[in-house]
């Protein structure tokens, strides 16, 4: 049973998507009169996807719990913004969100593709048809058999956070935007348009760079601020599988700039565009098919779509590899141009190589469970694997990103380069000296810090140089590189110089941690709008007092204990208080607890205790009372060989009052008494508390514990540089996006590619066949 309007919209999307592909194909074959039909078919496709999304959203808002998806992820007690976010809380909804953004982006793609519209749109639509087909099979509009539940299961409390509302949509805009450079690249291979696709696709690669990058950072910030993972990056498969396509996209952006200027590295860019799209599909397969279920923090249950995901991935991989192989020898390669090693072109190529190598290594690590499963024992790599390999790559990238601001396309001599960058090297040295004075000793981190600071300064000077010449609009790359330097410095400093202490605060007893004094004051009870929190007084040496409220509460629906850190932020230092454990305190306890399961015997100090049976007498409850009497039958076998039967009473109160459990003597053992302190009918178990059975009385005594809160206190210096550097990097990306979009609008791309470039008179190594293709 299905909710038919939604299902109809999905099937309509599938139909119109295919129709648009077919008509665009006819346009490509010369039926130019069909262009408006093809566009209308695409508009109908987009409208259908939007309609399906609206239907799902309406069902969620109207609490239609007879719909399985609505029932599984939402409930009536969710505030409105979380209700919206339940749309993408499950697999089907997030696939729909991906298609929704894809179909909307497509409306801009067809306008920007211009002379390449037909082939680009065919490939572009194809990238979403597979997911639409998955949604036809695994519909979010499945109905539950009646009667309809009155309330839903609700949203996982871990996802009930403001970031959940914004982070996934941005991520899926990034995912969807990756289809655009891919569509341009495939159509370039198909139509042998080796250079013409680049100016049109650059803005789109930058869109992916900015959206995917922003989404990755948001995820990291969410993890840091709310989830209390301690850090902002844990090398989890879900994080990695979005980082890898982003690295390929970043490499692609650089490669495209290079191709625009130099008209070379055509194959590199075609491969990179395919790689960034293929890795997003591969990542989707890894995280959604359940193959990583035992290895990841995020796990998705296999919905039975693994085969579909593998087929989609296989299809696009074969298409990319096949087309590249087919065209490999036909891609024109220009004669070598002599430049020194210290030239901009070489630096770009080196940077691209490092991005790709890093992406491949991360991909390898993330795929470890899959790869090792093939050869035997499934294994995974530790996070040190990523840290070890990412550090040298980051170092290289920072060096290149700094020096590139001072080398021209023609090349520079080492002496020139040194003279020009001297000032920045001093800035780097200053950062290292400062760090040494503050106690930094780790040589690797000092080297990284030196490079990061110097690189940031070099690019800062480049931006100023550009701005002075009135070309600030062209400084996007340098601006992004400043961000890289700042961010790297932040990663190093906040990571290497972080100090963590674990401590237990006894209520009302001040404890000194570093230069601060912490006192746990009380538990602040939660309300409908606020979660239960722990009040901690933070006093600095200077006498300033502040209060921190790390949250710790039990989710009423699931009984899960949730803990959110409290971060006391300042410009230079984050003081991170992560609650670990709350102990409400216990009065002193005398006795020894023993758990017995029905029919088994346990020997305590030589005396055997056999739990035979218990009888629950519910007659009082039946008559409206609120207690249940449980009689526990035991057989006791003391060391002297005798055998005794005993029955212990336990009265359980339904109103939550203290159960009544009188102590009885342990027959045959002088001075020993016992009582039942807990019964668990479902497990068939009781817990006995024995007193006086042991000769060593001290072993039965447990001192009272006081109300206390265990905290993990971390000082993270300069973590703001990580966020700040990232903003600068994204600002650089946006600036470049503005410039390249303007450029693309003006760009005149020949309908067919000329076989040689006038700028370079030398003939291409491989003869090029130029054939007229599409004319619009």
């Amino acid at each position, binding site marked *: 049973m299905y909710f038919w309007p939604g299902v109809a919209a999905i099937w309509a999307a599938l139909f119109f998507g295919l129709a648009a592909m077919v008509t665009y194909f006819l346009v490509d074959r010369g039926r130019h009169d069909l262009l408006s039909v093809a566009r209308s078919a695409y508009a109908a496709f987009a409208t259908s996807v939007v309609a399906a999304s609206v239907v799902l959203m309406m069902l969620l808002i109207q609490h239609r719990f007879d719909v399985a998806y609505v029932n*599984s*992820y939402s409930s009536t007690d969710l505030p409105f913004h979380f209700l919206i976010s339940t749309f993408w809380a*499950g*697999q089907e909804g997030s696939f729909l969100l991906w298609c929704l953004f894809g179909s909307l982006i497509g409306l801009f793609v067809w306008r920007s593709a211009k002379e390449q519209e037909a082939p680009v749109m065919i490939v572009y639509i194809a990238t979403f048809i597979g997911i639409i087909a998955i949604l036809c099979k695994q519909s979010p509009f499945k109905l539950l058999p009646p009667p309809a539940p009155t309330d839903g*299961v609700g949203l*996982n409390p*871990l*996802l009930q956070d403001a970031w959940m509302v914004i982070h996934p949509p941005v991520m899926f805009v990034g995912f969807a935007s990756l289809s655009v450079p891919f569509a341009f690249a495939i159509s370039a291979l198909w139509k042998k348009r080796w250079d013409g696709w680049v100016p049109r696709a650059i803005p789109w690669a930058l869109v992916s760079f900015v959206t995917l990058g922003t989404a990755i950072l948001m995820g990291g910030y969410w993890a840091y601020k709310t989830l209390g*993972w*301690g*850090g*902002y*990056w844990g090398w989890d498969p879900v994080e990695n599988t979005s980082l890898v396509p982003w690295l390929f996209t970043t490499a692609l952006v650089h490669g495209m700039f290079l191709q625009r200027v130099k008209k*070379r590295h055509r194959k590199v860019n075609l491969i990179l565009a395919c790689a960034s799209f293929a890795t997003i599909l591969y990542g989707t397969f890894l995280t959604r098919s359940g193959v990583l279920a*035992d290895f990841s*923090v*995020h*796990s*998705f*249950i296999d919905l039975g779509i693994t085969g579909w995901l593998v087929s989609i991935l296989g299809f696009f991989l074969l298409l990319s590899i096949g087309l590249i192989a087919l065209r490999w020898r036909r891609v024109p390669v220009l004669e*070598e141009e002599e430049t020194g*090693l210290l030239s901009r*072109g*070489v630096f770009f*190529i*080196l940077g*691209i*190589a*490092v991005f790709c*190598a*890093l992406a491949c*290594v991360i991909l*390898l690590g993330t795929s*470890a469970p899959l790869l*090792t499963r093939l050869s035997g*024992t*499934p*294994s*995974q*790599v*530790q*996070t*040190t694997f*990523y*840290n*070890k*390999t990412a550090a*040298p*790559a980051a170092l*290289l990238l920072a060096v290149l990103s700094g020096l590139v601001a001072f080398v021209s396309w023609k090349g520079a001599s080492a002496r020139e380069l040194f003279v020009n960058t001297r000032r920045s090297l001093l800035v780097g040295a200053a950062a290292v000296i400062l760090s040494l004075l503050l106690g930094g000793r780790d040589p690797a981190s000092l080297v990284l810090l030196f490079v990061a600071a110097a690189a940031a300064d070099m690019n800062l000077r480049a931006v100023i140089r550009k701005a002075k010449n009135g070309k600030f609009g062209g400084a996007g790359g340098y601006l992004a590189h400043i961000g890289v330097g700042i961010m790297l410095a932040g*990663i190093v400093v906040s*990571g290497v110089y972080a100090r*963590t202490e674990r401590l*237990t605060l006894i209520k009302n007893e001040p404890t000194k941690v570093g230069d601060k004094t912490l006192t746990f004051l009380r538990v602040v009870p939660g309300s409908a709008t606020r979660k239960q929190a722990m009040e901690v007084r933070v006093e600095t040496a200077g006498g300033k007092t502040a209060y921190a409220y790390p949250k710790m509460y039990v989710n009423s629906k*699931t*009984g*899960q204990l949730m803990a959110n850190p409290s971060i006391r932020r300042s410009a230079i230092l984050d003081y991170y208080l*992560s609650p670990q*454990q709350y102990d409400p305190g216990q009065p002193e306890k005398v006795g020894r607890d023993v758990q017995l399961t029905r029919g088994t015997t346990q020997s305590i100090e030589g005396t055997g205790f056999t739990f035979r049976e218990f009888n629950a007498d519910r007659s009082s409850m039946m008559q409206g009372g609120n207690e249940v009497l449980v009689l526990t039958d035991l057989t006791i076998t003391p060391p002297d060989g005798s055998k005794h039967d005993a029955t212990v009473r336990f009265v359980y109160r339904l109103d939550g009052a203290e159960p009544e459990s009188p102590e009885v003597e342990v027959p045959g053992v002088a001075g020993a008494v016992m009582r039942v302190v807990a019964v668990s009918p479902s497990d068939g178990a009781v817990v006995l508390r024995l007193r006086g059975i042991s000769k060593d009385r001290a072993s039965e005594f447990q001192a009272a514990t006081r109300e206390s809160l265990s905290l*993990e206190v971390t000082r993270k210096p300069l973590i703001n540089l990580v966020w700040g550097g990232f903003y600068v990097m994204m600002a650089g990306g946006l600036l470049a996006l503005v410039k390249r979009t303007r450029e693309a609008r003006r760009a005149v791309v020949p309908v067919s590619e000329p076989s040689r470039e006038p700028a370079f008179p030398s003939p291409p190594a491989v003869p090029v066949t130029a054939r007229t293709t599409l004319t619009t």
Partner: protein
Amino acid sequence: MKKGYWVAAALAVLFVGLGLTSFQKTLTPYLSFEEAKKSKGAVQVMGGLDKTSDRYDTATQQLSFDLVDPQGNRMPVLYGGTRPANFKDAVSIVAIGRYRNGRIEAEKLLVKCPSKYQGSEVERAYPSDTGGSGI
């Protein structure tokens, strides 16, 4: 430009070589309790929690508990942290660490819950110290 390609290729090869060696070094296999006892490196084991066995020592701030596999074998685990959320309701617990002194000294626990939330994020990892999980 050709020189540039060669340097790039050399860099990439070096880097992938570094990646492959540390891949070998840091691989943590999923092992049975018996295999884990023989292993010297980092391993991960999975088992159900024996609910009567878990103790949290406030003084040392260490958690110890026993995992039981489907065959009934026991594996004591020591973890330098507090009880993760959902710990008591876990269907199974994955402990990642080294086998030393007759027990697994875990650096990380993965708690798998009988979640009503089918789909996303039913588990969380609990790195034992802030620096250990990444950066």
